[in-house]
């Protein structure tokens, strides 16, 4: 009101703003900019503090030694994280191999084939999978899924024992169950991003395929999949980032054995699980604590790389979509 009141007050013209009002403009601007800058500061601080605290472990075992030495022995104070790195890779790869194809299938079904009326409810149900807390997945995984899967797992293990990473006795908590739980956990996000990308496929592309006589599936093959490939890759990478960093569910179902697993059905350990699981005993032992923080740092860097790559793909997919209509108009 004070800004626009018509009669001039206190010697300023009707169109001039009060000094309070004028001062508030830059104030809000700089306050909000400050908040944004604080986020950057926080992330930098984050990284530096983790690094400083992890340094003793890196000094003792070397950077490469810490990551690639196959020896994690708490009682002897030797910390080589290779078993954890391998466990993280195995469980994440299993999660991707199972989760991504299913997620893409749900995305294709929901965007291209599903009857209009069923689309919304099915989408909500898939998204509900993301609302289940990680610790609940762990609880269900260890008490329901793992015991029921032992039989089938043993059968597969015996039949495929000629392959590496198969064979031997199945243990109840194992890497495969962890991977399967992770597959379920990454499914909603991979599906959601794939759906987002697929809904932006230009209708002209799809109609062109159909008018040339393509069947629905051929249309998906010719128009939808090629157009959304980059976005789907990005979605899968984001899922991978989630799988690498997931902690509690994995800690509960993987068995927490610090050895390189002999088969996907033996117990394992991951970078995230070791931090959560050994943190209590490490509180009084500086070397152990530094080693756990170093494991956290390796995990951080790993997820950073994966997410940067994922963003690159997803952003490219989004840019591609925006430039297509413009290109056609020009």
């Amino acid at each position, binding site marked *: 009101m004070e800004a626009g009141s018509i009669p001039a007050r206190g010697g300023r013209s009707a169109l001039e703003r009060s000094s309070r009002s004028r001062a508030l403009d830059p104030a809000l601007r700089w306050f909000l900019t400050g908040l944004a800058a604080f986020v950057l500061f926080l992330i930098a601080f984050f990284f530096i503090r*983790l690094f400083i605290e992890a340094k003793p472990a890196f000094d003792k075992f070397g950077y490469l030694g810490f990551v690639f030495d196959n020896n994690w022995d708490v009682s002897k104070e030797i910390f080589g994280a290779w078993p954890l790195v391998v466990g993280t890779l195995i469980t994440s790869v299993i999660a991707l191999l199972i989760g991504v194809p299913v997620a893409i299938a749900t995305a294709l079904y929901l965007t291209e084939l599903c009857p209009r009326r069923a689309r919304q409810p099915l989408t909500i149900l898939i998204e509900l999978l993301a609302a289940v807390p990680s610790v609940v997945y762990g609880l269900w995984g260890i008490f329901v899924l793992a015991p029921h899967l032992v039989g089938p797992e043993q059968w597969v293990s015996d039949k495929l024992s000629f392959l590496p990473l198969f064979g031997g006795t199945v243990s109840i908590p194992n890497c495969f169950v962890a991977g399967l739980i992770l597959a379920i956990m990454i499914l909603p996000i991979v599906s959601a991003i794939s759906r987002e990308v697929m809904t932006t496929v230009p209708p002209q592309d799809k109609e062109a395929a159909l008018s040339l006589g393509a069947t629905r599936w051929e249309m998906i093959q010719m128009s939808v999949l090629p157009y959304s490939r980059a976005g789907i890759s990005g979605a899968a990478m984001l899922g991978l980032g989630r799988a690498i960093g997931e902690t509690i569910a994995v800690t509960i179902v993987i068995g927490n054995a610090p050895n390189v697993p002999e088969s996907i059905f033996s117990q394992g350990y991951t970078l995230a699980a070791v931090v959560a699981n050994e*943190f209590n005993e490490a509180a009084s032992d500086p070397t152990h604590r530094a080693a756990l923080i170093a494991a956290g740092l390796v995990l951080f860097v790993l997820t950073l790389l994966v997410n940067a790559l994922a963003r690159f793909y997803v952003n490219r997919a989004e840019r591609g979509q925006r430039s297509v209509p413009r290109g056609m108009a020009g």
Partner: protein
Amino acid sequence: MTTLPAVSSRRRATDRVMRVALLVLTLIALVPLVLIVYYLLKEGLGAWSKDFFTTDPTGRFLGDPGGIKSAIFGTIVMVALASLIAIPFGVGVALYLVEYGKAGRFANIVRYFIDVMTGVPSVVFGLFVYIVLVVSQIGGTFAAWKGSIALALLMLPVVTRSSEVVLNLVPDSLREAALALGAPRWRVTLRVVLPTALPGLMTGSMLAVARAAGETAPLLFTAAFVFGTQFDLSQRMNSLPLQIFNDVGQAQDRLVQRAWGAALTLVVLVLLLTLVARLVQRRSRLA
């Protein structure tokens, strides 16, 4: 008029097989959800009773394990405090990005790092707060408010990203109309843009709250575990996820049953938040 050649039977069969395969895979994706809900109800409802919600865990391995009162209370308190920190902060950063930063270089850098933060595993946030606040013994060791800060860090990128999307939906014509009437920029931002976007902002924030409520790893190193109900924010505080995590590790049927009961409680809590968020979203004028 020429007629197109009929679709060969092989192509038609492939089409049908693939359509069915996609449907089947979609249904398979829902199997875990059905199973989890089934077991939660079957095992969890059995654990529910009046005492379950009104007594604290006793910590006795044999005999009466007690209920989950302290855990429910702790989760609500810590998540509420985390929301008080993360929501204003996150909405503020989103306001900067949409109203001031726009597509500038600094804004894009901030945007990129917010995305980076989304991808940081929650356990790393927990470690960070542990190093900065617990090891350095700022105000004692483990404390509820430190748990809240860890949760707030986790919520921040989610709140910012969802708020940015909503603020972008506020039509420019509204901003232009207010500016043309002589309103200063800060007024346009706080009195026009913010209220218009409010329902959408609430939806995004509540989804972030729901996510934080289910997190275990960050609390493990910050708020730690305790049996009794705690009102002091500078002391250890129990929470539902930690209670479940602890009970799962015990090979004792009654503790495992308590874990199922607590899990059902937690899921109901998270679902309620999600549901309310969706209802608010539906009433929103934007989108």
